[in-house]
């Protein structure tokens, strides 16, 4: 354990190595991927709300980071920089997805379909789940408008200003959305805990 810590290079050194590495030599960058694959994948999972898309999104985040590495000047930490790439990428993904998944509810064939019927109690059956699964299900049940700011703040630790920039809203609106996200999460999660 101690040896492992001693040999662990700081991110900054790895970034410099990766920046100066010849094309095809990805040893330094691979180490950065190993370090951040879990938090990036977790964030992508909850921002997209889709386990199926999470790994593809995380993969694209690292590919973007690799090709943007030459322009990375080290003004922030590599971790913060990757988080911003991830936030940006996931938000763009959600925008594209919402524009793609248009369903005409006036269409009689669609409105009568069982596939589009949404249960009002999306958290039904949550009581039987473990604490971690309850957190997961509660988060997934939140609408994007509150889930994304909440994740960016409480999971990513981005500043309110960064959140405002990512979402293209004002600072006070970003704060309000985070606050609403927290309230909604607590209401849904606390409700389930109280029921148990």
């Amino acid at each position: 354990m101690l040896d492992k810590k001693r040999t662990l290079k700081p991110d900054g050194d790895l970034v410099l190595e990766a920046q100066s590495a010849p094309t095809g030599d990805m040893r330094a960058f691979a180490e950065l991927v190993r370090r951040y694959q879990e938090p990036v994948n977790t964030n992508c999972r909850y921002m997209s709300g889709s386990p199926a898309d999470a790994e593809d999104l995380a993969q694209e985040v690292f590919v973007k980071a690799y090709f943007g590495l030459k322009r990375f000047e080290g003004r922030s930490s590599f971790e913060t920089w990757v988080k911003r790439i991830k936030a940006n990428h996931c938000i763009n993904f959600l925008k594209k997805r919402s524009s793609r998944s248009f369903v005409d509810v006036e269409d009689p064939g669609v409105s009568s379909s069982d596939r589009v019927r949404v249960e009002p109690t999306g958290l039904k059956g949550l009581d039987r789940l473990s604490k971690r699964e309850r957190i997961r299900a509660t988060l997934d049940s939140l609408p994007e408008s509150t889930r994304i700011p909440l994740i960016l703040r409480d999971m990513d630790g981005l500043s309110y200003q960064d959140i405002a920039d990512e979402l293209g809203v004002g600072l006070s609106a970003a704060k309000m959305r985070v606050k609403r996200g927290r309230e909604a999460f607590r209401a849904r999660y606390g409700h389930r805990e109280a029921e148990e």
Partner: protein
Amino acid sequence: MGSEPILELAELAETPSDGFEGRVQRSILRRNFAADLASYAWFTPIRILLEYLGLALSLGGGSSTEGQGGE
């Protein structure tokens, strides 16, 4: 209360499946290859054009020199 962070969110961790790192590397290599191919696709016609221009200039230059030499 609403402005306090949700500490439970820090408990969430989703480990990507095995081979994730390899997939990232392969994706990067594929894009590098595609970029090389694209730059080659641009470069080759330009190179051919320059060769033709060079040839035309050398031929044109050669004939005008011949003409001047004949006076």
